């Protein structure tokens, strides 16, 4: 391997520093966006408790929005379908992982134990169609 010149090393170092700076800014921005969203939601949750106690009216725009029936239904539906979608995707990912690993385990264990028996599940870890 050829030795890098000082100028090349300095340029590489500068590039890495630029990467680090952009990474740090992105981290700060992502954190601010993520947690301020939660703070916003919690703030209006708190205001809704105050409204319940009769200390404020729903004149505030945010409280008004949260109190809107259509808005409540839409966010509930998004939450429900989002949760279902997330669960299904996680399940598919788990099965992909099982599929990816099972063939290698089968091959490697087969090399050690030629009479290795099998659970007869499908490569994705599902019940064998014949067993249903």
């Amino acid at each position, binding site marked *: 391997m050829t030795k*890098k*010149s000082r*100028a*090349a090393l*300095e*340029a*590489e170092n*500068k*590039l890495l520093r*630029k*990467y680090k*700076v*952009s*990474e740090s*800014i*992105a981290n700060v*921005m*992502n954190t601010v966006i*993520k947690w301020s*969203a*939660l703070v916003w*939601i*919690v703030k*209006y*949750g708190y205001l*809704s408790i105050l*409204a*319940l106690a*009769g200390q404020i*009216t*729903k004149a505030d725009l945010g*409280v008004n*929005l*949260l*109190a*809107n*029936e259509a*808005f*409540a239904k839409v*966010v*509930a539906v*998004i*939450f429900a379908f*989002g*949760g279902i979608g*997330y669960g299904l*995707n*996680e399940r598919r*990912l788990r099965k*992909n*992982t099982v599929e*990816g690993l099972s063939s290698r385990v089968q091959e490697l264990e087969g090399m050690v134990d030629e009479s290795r028996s099998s659970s007869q599940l499908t490569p994705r870890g599902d019940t064998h169609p014949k067993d249903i």
Partner: protein
Amino acid sequence: MPHDHIINMFFSTISLVGIWFLFILHRKYSIDRFREEMFRLRDEVFNYAESGEIDFNSQAYGLLRTAANGFIRFAHKLSVLQMILFYFSVKNFKLIDTKDSFDEKWAKSLEGFNDEKAKTLKEYKLRMSLLVIKHIVFSSPPLLLTIIFPLITCFAIKYALSNFVRVLKTPLNDINSAAFAYGGSC
């Protein structure tokens, strides 16, 4: 304040917190999925080398494997925001020696291979790049909400409409023929 408004506020708040939490879970899921896909690609490259097509010690194999390992390790740091910031910070930046860039090394590493093998290796690299782009786009909730979902909805509507028109094509044709015949007989 009416009782039903208070109930709405309660459910809105709970749902919004849930959606916020789903966004965080989605990001974690995207990272897991990206790593899984990258592992699979790395396995494919390993199998390709194991079949004897390329040497495990070849520079091309080393570059692909090292890059895949890097992406797997730092998948949690790949985001749209960072890519944009990094792009603008190094826009006018030049490495002193261009042979240090990944593309230069990659091009050089393919020199010893015949066209077929070079093509296969290039495909692996292309797939790796596509996985990275897919991960960056799909792991970003703002991009998903503002670009991907509207695009998918648009294509779905277009597809549904084109199918609907195809189904109606025969009856429409018959109606048109009848109208034409009536028009001609006037």
